[in-house]
């Protein structure tokens, strides 16, 4: 039998704990006989997943720091790549007129590019390699600028 909670190895999920506010008997029965889902519940779950996907996309579109959108989407917000690109933007690009124009253009297309990359695995793999390489170059450029 599956056991979770205090003093157990597997952590308890928020959803599992939340079920305590709905029906304790259901938790016990699911524990004894396994989780069972009615067709209506399955339908509601699918509807919920679609709603959450939309909610997530809307949240991403409105997130305050869109400036390293693609790097954040590929490597995570606190990744080395995202940090390198942000630093390059702040120390190099924003100091020239063309650089500022490029940044503004990127603000516009970044979320859309991320949306496409989320849905196209081959393009995402290619983008990961390209952006990782670009981040390395940017990191070296920033180091050279600081040294010189």
């Amino acid at each position, binding site marked *: 039998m599956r056991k979770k909670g205090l003093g157990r190895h597997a952590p308890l999920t*928020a959803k599992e*704990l939340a079920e*305590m*506010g709905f029906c304790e008997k259901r938790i016990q*029965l699911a524990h004894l006989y396994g989780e069972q889902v009615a067709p209506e*519940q399955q339908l509601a779950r699918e509807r919920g997943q679609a*709603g959450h996907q939309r909610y997530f996309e809307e949240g991403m579109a409105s997130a305050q720091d869109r400036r390293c959108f693609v790097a954040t989407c590929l490597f995570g917000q606190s990744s080395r790549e995202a940090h390198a690109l942000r630093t390059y933007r702040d120390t190099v690009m924003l100091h020239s007129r063309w650089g500022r124009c490029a940044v503004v253009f990127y603000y516009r*297309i970044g979320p859309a590019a991320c949306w496409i990359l989320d849905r196209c695995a081959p393009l995402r793999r290619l983008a990961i390699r390209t952006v990782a390489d670009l981040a390395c170059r940017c990191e070296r450029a920033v180091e050279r600028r600081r040294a010189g």
Partner: protein
Amino acid sequence: MMTLLWMLLFGFVVAILLAWLRWLRLRAGERASRPHELKAAHPVYMERQFRSRGPISIVARLDRAYRLQNGRIVLVELKTRAGDRAYPSDIIQLSAQKLALEGEAGEEVESYAFVTVLRPDHPRRWRSHRVTLLDSSQLQALARRREAVLDGRATPTYAASNRACAGCALRPRCDRPDTWVDARR
């Protein structure tokens, strides 16, 4: 050859324009779905998982978290359902999210949160309900009770209404009588 290049370029520009319009629409959607109290806040975490390793080990995936101007975090949970209200299970889920977020990221999370309800018949109309969260000791007590129920040391309670049982796949195995009325109602 040149015509093909121009067509490709035109297609690229149109694709960018459409993607940009979509992004604008999404951003407007986020603004519309925000609870009124969070108009000046900005979203910081979306669909992120956090894990707390305190007195209870909890994993929680939060739908959205906003940072207020004072630096504190307010949690928002999206629910797609017909009932336009917050349920006790929503409060427990948000409280567990608070515990996990505080435990892993060290953020200061407000003791209130919002349950945003999206009704299936109105897919673009959000209603937000402010709820007060449980504290850590209440969550611990709840986790202990859950364990007692699973181990058979405590008698489980039933859902608060007969209606809640209607869609339950485990109803045939349940010993709750059809006419049963919970004292909590």
